[in-house]
């Protein structure tokens, strides 16, 4: 037994690195009060160690801890996205006024970030429903604390409480679903569940209900409509760094888990077909549920975003809409759709983090995130404004930016699957999204500033960081071959064709 555990430990080096980082961060914070730079440095170092650990696992495809976790290209891909996003958020936090206003609690802020990264790492590897639940809770609990970390501000605490309540409810429903599935199939391991279901071991309505309960938990994590109600308030109230983190990393982890559960549990492994395309188990129409979910998610996200006057809240709704686009990739029931969603995540990470970073920098200067404060930004800081414009153009999905390539692959997968009507809904949604993104352009470039007109000072590291986000946003729009190949390679999950 011990030998087996020791053997398995060799496969979770990145997670071990993150756990040690967490401990080191907490200890350092206790020993050296107010040395937050040091804690942040330790966390970044830990992330680097985890990255090295990930690199050593490239190409592995194993199941460890008695089928609780899978180490495969699929989870590695999402771990890379999560790690990159976490590192960016730590770097953003170092320059954020909101975070520095937390004074002595900054140490725990960084420590919690690493705890959340750990939770999300385990989420995308989990192949056991109970592990899924526990790791989901690990990342959720830390994110409740993080979104309330500006204790002094009322809406931050409100965000935290709302998040907690919605989270508790959703995970409760999910847990109920898990218990139903366990009752129906006698197992928590998703591969075993699939086998039992494939042999008709469960009546389909009961499985469908249990599946929907499970979906509540996933849907809450990726903020899909109608499980999105917490999103705008939490995104608005939380420190912007955390909002950025939640909108990318947390969503990536949720998607990773959802995709694995969906593909492993509901796919008919015995069916023959084109390689890369799969068919669902007979009797459970998970596809239609996802279609409805994705249409609702993108349409509602986009339509409500039209009315927002707070840029942070606008980006919150836009991130809901983007979850809808990404769900489109799942609907296709094929590896091409999955890889399109995964590709979208990498691109989405650069453009969405970039947009939030500009929001952080602007609010450092103006103290708020209202549309009003973006008036005349083009004159006050051409670099920030042009950067923001490029991120938003990419979020809209216009060439030659990366966002276009992300959407292109998703729509290509849909067209290839002959789901033309759904593709039309998707593209029309991106036309709608143009309108609200363009409102930001309009304020930045077409209108004069009503208040402050002085230049916004930008430090050298800020320039560098913004460029690191900007360059891929443009470059991946013009040359995306290697990334696409990587995403398509990474679609391979353990134990499934």
């Amino acid at each position, binding site marked *: 037994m011990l030998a087996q555990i020791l053997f398995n430990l060799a496969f979770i080096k990145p997670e071990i690195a993150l756990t040690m980082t967490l401990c080191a961060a907490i200890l350092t914070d206790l020993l050296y009060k107010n040395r937050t730079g040091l804690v942040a440095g330790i966390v970044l170092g830990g992330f680097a160690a985890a990255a090295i650990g990930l690199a050593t696992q490239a190409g592995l495809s194993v199941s460890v801890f008695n089928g609780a976790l899978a180490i495969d290209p699929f989870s590695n891909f999402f771990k890379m996205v999560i790690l990159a996003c976490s590192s960016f958020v730590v770097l953003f936090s170092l320059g954020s006024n909101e975070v520095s206003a937390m004074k002595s609690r900054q140490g725990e802020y960084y420590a919690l970030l690493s705890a959340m990264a750990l939770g999300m790492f385990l989420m995308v590897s989990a192949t056991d429903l109970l592990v899924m639940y526990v790791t989901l809770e690990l990342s959720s609990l830390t994110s409740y604390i993080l979104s309330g970390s500006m204790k002094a501000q009322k809406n931050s605490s409100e965000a935290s409480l709302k998040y907690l309540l919605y989270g508790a409810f959703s995970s409760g429903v999910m847990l109920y679903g898990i218990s139903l599935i366990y009752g129906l199939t006698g197992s928590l391991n998703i591969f075993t569940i699939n086998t039992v279901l494939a042999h008709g071991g469960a009546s389909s309505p009961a499985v469908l209900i249990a599946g929907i309960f499970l979906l509540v938990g996933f849907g809450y994590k990726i903020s899909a409509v109608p499980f999105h109600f917490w999103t705008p308030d939490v995104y608005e109230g939380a420190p912007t760094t955390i909002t950025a983190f939640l909108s990318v990393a947390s969503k990536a982890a949720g998607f990773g888990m959802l995709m694995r559960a969906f593909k492993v549990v509901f796919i008919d492994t015995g069916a023959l077909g*084109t*390689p*890369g*395309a799969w068919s669902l188990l007979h009797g459970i129409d998970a596809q239609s549920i996802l279609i409805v979910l994705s249409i609702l998610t993108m349409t509602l996200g986009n339509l409500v975003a039209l009315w927002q006057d707070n840029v942070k809240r606008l980006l919150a709704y836009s991130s809901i809409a983007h979850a809808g686009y990404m769900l489109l990739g799942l609907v296709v029931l*094929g*590896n*091409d759709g999955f*890889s399109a969603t995964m590709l979208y995540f990498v691109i989405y990470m650069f453009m969405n983090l970039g947009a939030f970073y500009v929001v952080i920098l602007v609010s450092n200067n103006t103290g708020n995130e209202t549309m009003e404060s973006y008036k005349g930004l083009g004159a006050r800081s051409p670099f920030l404004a042009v950067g923001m414009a490029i991120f938003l*153009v990419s979020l809209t999905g*216009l*060439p*030659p930016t990366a966002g*276009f390539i992300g959407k*292109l692959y998703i*729509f*290509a*997968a849909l*067209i*290839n699957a*002959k789901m*033309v009507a759904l*593709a*039309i809904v998707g*593209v*029309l949604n*991106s*036309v709608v999204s*143009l*309108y609200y993104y*363009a409102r930001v*352009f*309009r304020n930045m*470039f*077409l209108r004069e500033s009503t208040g402050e007109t002085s230049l916004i000072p930008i430090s050298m590291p800020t320039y560098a960081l913004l460029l690191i986000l900007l360059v891929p946003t443009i470059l991946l729009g013009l*040359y*995306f*071959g290697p990334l*696409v*190949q990587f995403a*398509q390679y990474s*679609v391979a999950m353990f134990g499934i064709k």
Partner: protein
Amino acid sequence: MMELKFLNVGILTWITFLPVLGMIVVLLLPKNNKTAMRWTSLGVTILQMALSVVIFQYFNRGLAGINTVDGMQFKEFIPWIDVQSLAILGRLKIDYFLGIDGISVSMVMLTALVSFVATIASWNIEKSVKGFFALLLLLNTGMMGVFVSLDFFLFYIFWEVMLLPMYFLIGVWGGPRREYAAIKFFIYTLFGSVLMLLAMLALYFSVSVIDPSTGMKMHTFNMLAMMNPANFDPASLLGGLGTSMRYYAYVALFIGFAIKVPIFPFHTWLPDAHVEAPTAISVILAGVLLKMGTYGLMRIAFPIFPDAAIYFAYPLAFVGFINIIYGALCAMAQTDFKKLIAYSSVSHMGIVILGMAAFNSQGMVGAIFQMFNHGTITAMLFLIVGVLYDRAHTRGLNDFGGLMNKMPKYSAVMVIAFFAALGLPSMSGFVSEAFVFLGAFQTYRYLTIASAFGIVLTAGYMLWTLQRVFLGTLPEKWNGLTDINTRELISLVPLAVIVIFLGIYPMPIINLMNTSANALVEFVRSGAGMALVGR
């Protein structure tokens, strides 16, 4: 086969990407050096004109192009993106494939000419000069790229690249309602282009060619490959001929292009955009952007979907007719000079549509020629409005009168432009309109007769406008108006010379497009014929 290269880079790449080089120079110039920025842009457009003269010189009039790689000239082919994909998607291959034939060569020349004129017309822009010229140059690359790409993906990228510069050029430097006009333009065009994107993807998955290096089948964005019915996989979305899916795809492409033309009822963005845009941008909008729609129909929609093109030929001719009459009637009702010209564009583009829809060689030649002529004539008209607006700061037609004596040189240029626009013989507009009506009459007798009534309406509002502006008594307040200056003349005279020259001797341009236009008609008709046989 002619190959023109400089520094081992082909002439079409140069003419397309020179503006980007210019843009980089403009962005690097110090902020206060406005003169250098203007001269950089002008230098770029002069070089483009020079290149277009070289193209004109070396263009082989005997090659048809359209659907054959060998018929394309000044070709450049570089593999750009090559993803060895999953089995299900096949291999993704996008090529940097440029080339021109008789349909595009005149558009390339027109783009170079109109960009040059627009740069001169924007000389007196003072508000953020750097941004203006950088965006203008980027726009220029987008326009040129659309006319030279033979890979659908590349075409789409260029098509979309224009949107953002245009949004800002109208939105920042435009008139009082610029924000509304800019976003309206943006959303309309994006709406059209996303439909085009879906049609493009559907085509991509339906067409496959044999990869010469591996001998395997692969999908392609190559437009020329899409034109060959043999390349369509029978089981695919757009396989076969005359299927309803093909008609939907054609309609999706059509809407994308129709919004740009603009074809009624997708035209409502045009008056707003034109009225609010600064003069130079109106010139580009009317001179080049509108042509992209009709060019796209000819280059992509017709030859790829010949079955649908013929099936929808009558509806197409009918919307052409509506455009002609409706545009003219709207123009007649305007009191804003610029809005009048904008609606006259709607009317004149209707003539292009009518000519294309005839699907015979006179009609097609007339349509392409009319595209060129409309580009030059409408550019003149917008410049003329700009000259007056710069001085009087109003465009109300009823505010003027008796300007003939006050601004004699201006009046002379304006009379040339107006007579060209109403299709007076000896002006270029007459020749192309005559071709269009000649062609259309053979196919749609009554519709053409009805459309020809549009010419009368055009003459009506044009002459009425001349009367309102030039004749009668000069109102007191315009005593201080000065005549047209040298810079403005430099932008107008070349256009006027071209308009008159092509009116008297149109052969240089017609020779350029004749072979290709005939081949296009032939190709579409035979493709559609196959569809009928197959049915």
